């Protein structure tokens, strides 16, 4: 017999990701803390090691803003800072 597949087509995300940077030397790294325990510790260490290996530098470490957490996007104010002050961002979306 014939049946329909249940999943349907995939649409377009509201905010597609920008292409990854091929070379990080000289770039500014941001860390966006998602508010989960130990997230900042892990991500800052990862950012520091990435900077050491590539010649980039850690320029900004921030949380998502008041009452924002892992379940929500960061505040507009934080997004504006990231846009202006860093070239790439390390963040996480889970525990």
């Amino acid at each position: 017999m014939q049946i329909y597949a249940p999943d349907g087509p995939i649409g377009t995300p509201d905010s597609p990701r920008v292409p990854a940077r091929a070379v990080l030397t000289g770039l500014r790294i941001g860390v966006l803390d998602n508010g989960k325990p130990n997230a900042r510790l892990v991500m800052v260490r990862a950012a520091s090691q990435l900077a050491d290996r590539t010649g980039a530098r850690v320029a900004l470490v921030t949380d998502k803003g008041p009452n924002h957490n892992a379940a929500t996007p960061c505040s507009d104010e934080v997004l504006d800072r990231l846009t202006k002050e860093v070239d790439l961002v390390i963040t996480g979306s889970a525990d």
Partner: protein
Amino acid sequence: MNPVAARTSATPTAAPDAELLEVGDSPEALLALFAERGWGDGLPLVAPTPERVSAMLAALGDVDPDEVIATLPPRFGQATRRIIAVNAVLAGCAPEHLPVVVTAVRALARPEVNLRGVNATTHCVAPLLVVHGEIAGQAGYNGGIGAFGPGNRANAATGRAVRLILLHVAGAVPGPGDASTQGGPAKYSYCVAENAAATPWEGYAASVGVHASSAVTVHCGEGPHNVHDMESSEPAPILDKLASAMATLGPNNVVIAQGEFFVALCPEHASTIAAHGWSRRDIQSYLYQRARLPAADVRAAFVSRAWEPWMHAVPDDELLPMTGHPDHIRVFVCGGPGKHSSIIPSWGMTKSVTLPIEP
């Protein structure tokens, strides 16, 4: 029977963007195909043949079956009416249940629901559907005895259809799309009707400003937590027990002030409370006042707190409410004879939505 399906090509019955597959006629072949593709909820399914899907769609009347009702994260799958109908067939829905499923999908896509978070979180959250108004009776939804339990096709199949849509279209598959640490039984099916006949106040939908003959509410939260009171003949002792169940360190509400509590009052508790002249607003206000924990205990338990600004200023030796505003406590009547009500805590970073039933 060979369960392996093949994509058909150039079939004249294929709708735009809806893919047709070939599969053996047996239920076992269908289950095997779905297991192979990573589809389904593990339970037997009804084959979504073009004939069954067309019959399902007919319940919606003269509407475009391929209009995208919602794009659902994290997969960003497009939920057309046809794809929704496919999943409704799979779940065992009757055609008269489809408008509820379509409306629930529309509600889940509202930004305040935060479906991406609902689907992806480590929490056990599942969308509860509460069906209101004429369609509850017409389509056979149960708001009476055992409403949260088994035995009613409308409740079971509608809740299951929404879950299958979240699995298939939204991609909320345990692991890659749903990080829920323990999952939860509410993730199989979670749908009840409001017991309108036993509601001593205006209906829930009207109470939140939705004045329609039929409506559905989605609330993304935990499974129901029982609260029994066999003895009290006045409102306060009944509500104190509900408040006691709300005021614990476990639910996300304790640290996410925008989180709602749904309170499903059984008819007998509702009747006792209303007989003393208490309104729904009185219940909300009382529970807001009584469902509290010492501020010092909460601060000691949690570093991360998404509170209203004023809540941060509550001294350690005073009590903190379990939610940021009385309006976050949502009261409806559900169930049959007996003296068991329930509270349904929220995932937190989500708000309930009530929409009129539309095809």
